[in-house]
């Protein structure tokens, strides 16, 4: 269908559809770029997590791979001192507001944050930044899953599937700034909301915020 273009990512020549965002072009070809908020189905990238920075030749500063379309002859580097520095800071900022208790987390071993830490040799521990996590009660009300807001990284995947795939409209982003969070109308627990407990949102959560209960029992 669409035209193909040849681009270079980390010295590898790739043929990808023209205009494909670099993040997907790289991932499809086995090149990992850290990312949380990016997911393919969403028509417009949120570009909120700020983890997928890459260097593109000719650009003065690193750019986010989820927003940058592939153009013929483009030369991309997934790593550089500048990229590494930005990714490290963004990662540290995210974990400064994420309840880090991996040993007791249902997603231990299958967590995007752990994957990023491993890929980029980053510590899952705060060294220079302050702990910002506020203790919030876990919403255990649904039968098969639970929601721990203190582990949420605000990637928005759950909100997207709730609205667009499951078409329920039970959860959404509320408030703003540091108080921004994923919650329900009136901030009631999930079973008191329109939630149908279909579990679609749990499947897309990259971290341990939305987890199936049987996983936790394992």
């Amino acid at each position, binding site marked *: 269908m669409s035209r193909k273009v040849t681009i270079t990512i980390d010295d590898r020549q790739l043929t990808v559809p023209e205009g494909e965002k670099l993040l997907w072009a790289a991932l499809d070809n086995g090149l990992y770029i850290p990312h949380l908020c990016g997911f393919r189905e969403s028509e417009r990238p949120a570009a909120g997590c700020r983890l997928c920075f890459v260097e593109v030749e000719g650009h003065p500063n690193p750019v986010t791979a989820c927003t940058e379309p592939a153009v013929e002859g483009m030369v991309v580097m997934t790593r550089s001192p500048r990229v590494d520095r930005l990714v490290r800071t963004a990662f540290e900022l995210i974990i400064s507001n994420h309840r880090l208790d991996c040993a007791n987390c249902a997603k231990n071993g299958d967590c995007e944050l752990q994957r990023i830490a491993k890929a980029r040799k980053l510590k899952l521990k705060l060294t220079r930044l302050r702990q910002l996590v506020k203790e919030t009660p876990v919403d255990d009300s649904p039968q098969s899953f639970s929601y721990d807001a203190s582990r949420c990284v605000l990637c928005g995947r759950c909100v997207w599937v709730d609205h667009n795939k499951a078409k329920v409209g039970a959860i959404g982003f*509320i408030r703003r700034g540091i108080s921004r969070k994923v919650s329900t109308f009136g*901030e009631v627990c999930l079973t008191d909301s*329109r939630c149908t407990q279909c579990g679609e949102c749990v499947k897309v959560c990259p971290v341990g915020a939305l987890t199936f209960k049987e996983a936790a029992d394992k």
Partner: protein
Amino acid sequence: MGLMEGELEIIRAEVEAVLEKYDLDREKLIPILQGVQVKLGYLPKEAMRQIAEALKVPEVDVYGVGTFYNQFRMNPPGKHQFKVCMGTACHMTGGRIIMESFERRLSISEGETTPDREFSLERVACVGCCALAPVVVVDETVEAKVRPTRVDGILLGFGLERAAPEKTAPDEGIDQGEEGREQ
């Protein structure tokens, strides 16, 4: 927070009246919320639910918009509102001190309403009267160059009014949990 008797009917009717003035289109959400708040002083959950149904958008999205913007209140405001300007000029000329004077005198914190629902205290980012800093907006009137002594003066004015004989007993304290704070 529970509604008082008859309140639900009033909310329904007011929201209906506002909805009639607009196309039932997602784009009209913010003007509709503004219209409802003008009528009711805040956005009751029942009102937001009714708006969501009319516009055919998920109710959580209406709530998301309502909690995003500074102007929207989730709880009823006091009969009189004090808005302390916290713009740059006001801050540097003692806006914080003025806020603290109000907090001390009213025994409430910024963003709260007194238990009798007489007064609410808010901060505003800037009312554009920087040359007259620090300023306080008392209901709709801008007070210029306010000092802590002027705070006493402002409250004295209302104190006389509060002492009027028709004053009813204060309502039960209203819940001022996290959602009462407008941030």
